[in-house]
């Protein structure tokens, strides 16, 4: 072992973080609240909404997980993790008091500063809406700084609808609209029926002062954004959160490339006009 690597900032170093709270969101989805063990690391840790950490489990590996808690409280880091792969399934079994690792924060977050004073339309589809939940919570904690908020959320089947209480709470807030839709509804479904892009026709949008945040399957972005553009929303006012295979988080390992971009460092949140060409293509 040699000391040079110690003296240069080493982006591969993993910091232990204790699970201080575990909240079950659904059968296979948990939100883990993490606190970095090392006081100095904890004191220096800052992030922006929409950034992610590489979350590490000893002996198993790392997964890229967005930070959904508030950037003004960087000493506590919430990560909503769905058990879908080798690593996230192993993490799902952990309990408060146990230790994970954290490396980050990485990437470009939501443009929430830029969105101040504007109407915000938030479009999410399927189960992948954790990154955008952080953005919504951020806005609601600073509600007066933003114009109207419209949340459009589509799920396949009603049991895919997570955060029911949160949607209800947001719906009750002033100047806020929450519209839910399911394209495979059952008898209990009392909201819209259809795919999320149909909701664009149902809401009023003032294109001159609206910013759109989108998170979900790429097909939703590909089909949905043109509808918004036809309604006059400028391309530069639409932001999407992308998902790619990531191992390093720093634009070096090569896996997350989308055309000329490294989604880990140039994204995961990207302005639509920059990636429109690539979003429409297969195999990129």
């Amino acid at each position, binding site marked *: 072992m*040699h000391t040079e690597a110690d003296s240069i900032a080493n982006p591969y170093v*993993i910091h*232990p973080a204790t699970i201080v709270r575990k909240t079950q969101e659904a059968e296979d989805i948990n939100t883990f609240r993490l606190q970095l063990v090392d006081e100095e690391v904890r004191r220096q840790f800052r992030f922006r909404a929409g950034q992610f950490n590489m979350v590490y489990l000893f*002996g198993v590996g790392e997964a890229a997980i967005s930070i959904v808690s508030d950037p003004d409280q960087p000493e506590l880091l919430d990560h909503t993790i769905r058990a879908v792969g080798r690593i*996230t399934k192993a993490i799902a079994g952990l309990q408060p008091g146990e230790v994970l690792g954290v490396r980050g924060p990485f990437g470009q977050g939501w443009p929430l500063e830029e969105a101040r004073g504007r109407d915000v339309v938030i479009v999410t589809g399927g189960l992948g809406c954790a990154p955008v939940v952080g953005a919504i919570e951020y806005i609601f904690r600073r509600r007066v700084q933003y114009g109207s908020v419209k949340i459009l959320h589509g799920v396949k089947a009603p049991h895919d609808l997570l955060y029911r209480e949160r949607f209800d709470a947001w719906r009750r807030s002033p100047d806020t609209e929450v519209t839910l839709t399911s394209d495979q509804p059952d008898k209990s479904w009392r909201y819209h029926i259809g795919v999320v892009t149909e909701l664009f026709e149902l809401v009023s949008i003032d294109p001159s002062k609206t910013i759109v945040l989108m998170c979900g399957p790429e097909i939703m972005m590909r089909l949905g954004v043109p509808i918004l553009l036809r309604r006059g929303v400028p391309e530069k006012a639409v932001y999407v959160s992308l998902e790619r295979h990531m191992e*390093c988080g720093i634009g070096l390992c090569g896996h997350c490339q989308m055309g000329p971009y490294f989604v880990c460092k140039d994204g995961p949140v990207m302005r639509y006009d920059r990636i429109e060409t690539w979003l429409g293509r297969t195999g*990129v």
Partner: protein
Amino acid sequence: MIFPPCTRRGEFVLWRDYLLENERRFVADDIHKILPVAHLQRLLDALSAKGYRIVGPTVHDGSVVWETIRVVADLPIGWRDHQEPARYRLEQTRSSEIFGVVHGPQSLKPFAFAPRESLLQIERTKDGFATHQMAAQPEKVAVIGARACDLAGLAIQDRIFLKDAYRDPYYAVRREGLFVIAVNCTRALSTCFCASMETGPRAKAGFDLALTEVDDRLLIDVGSEAGRQVLEGISLFPASEELIGEGATSIDACARSQVRRLDRARLPQALYDVHEHPRWDDVAGRCLACTNCTMVCPTCFCHTIEETPDLSHQQTARARLWDSCFTQEHGYIHGKNIRPTIKDRYRMWLTHKLASWIDQFGMSGCVGCGRCITWCPVGIDLTEELSVLLASSNRSSVAGRPVEGR
């Protein structure tokens, strides 16, 4: 996105400009000297005396690979390589030529970007775990026999690992100890196209010493202060104008003799524009996705991180290994593979290498060494694929949009 200043759109750095800029630093030392071939051992001894482990090309299992050498006789004297698509053959010519072999499958890449690099050793503690950073033992390694294309490849890797948002500490340690003795090419392989990439055949920058073999003499160029120091104490002779001219003529002839070329004029956009070209299906029908091209490429930097716990589960090691965009796992996310077909992966590789690399790093990802042509088991030739892709009038099939920095 934060692009380095040199890569703002419209300000792409040409290789020629990059090389010229680096060349300027040592103009004062640019006086050719001669080392008779019979005295080459003195250079090796001088390197040993300065603590360098010397690595040079050696014949091994029908190919040329880098090995530690001690004496001139370890070098592939009299050997020549013949390279064609999917073919590599060595021939013993019985001449006294020392640097007759142009190159083997390895470039300079493994010396700084190790095929396997230990990153961290992590052990369980009562608080969770403790992380120990691993680092390569700093070692002084002198590589003799690198070609201009290899230097260009190393410069690209430097750009990626040392001059991007992060400075990779593992790469930095290995790179720090590297001393490069380049050899100017006086013979081109059928697979070479460095002239059209403006990376060779003359080594212009990024070396400590550069040799040109002219019969039984070695013309020496000094490229760095470290190079100058190594030559101290070795008696060299000033080179005559005639000999310098002879060396230059051989290098120029080597450039002119190259039968392959790569037309970069309309890149990157022209390649972005042919995303739906039928040729991708054609090449996918030949490509085996074996990853050979990415393993021999001097610039490919993809890697994967591997976690290896011990049996007691008290210790675990993290290491990075070379990866390839041709593997099934490369584009995997849960529930989906972004690049499921070989067509997707070949297109990804070629488009990255020749087009998006320019947007990412301000330079092409190809140096024209031709290794991917030689070592492809089915002989896919990227220069041919590119010319077919860009030749037909398929250009407007997909609306192109220039890439813009933030």
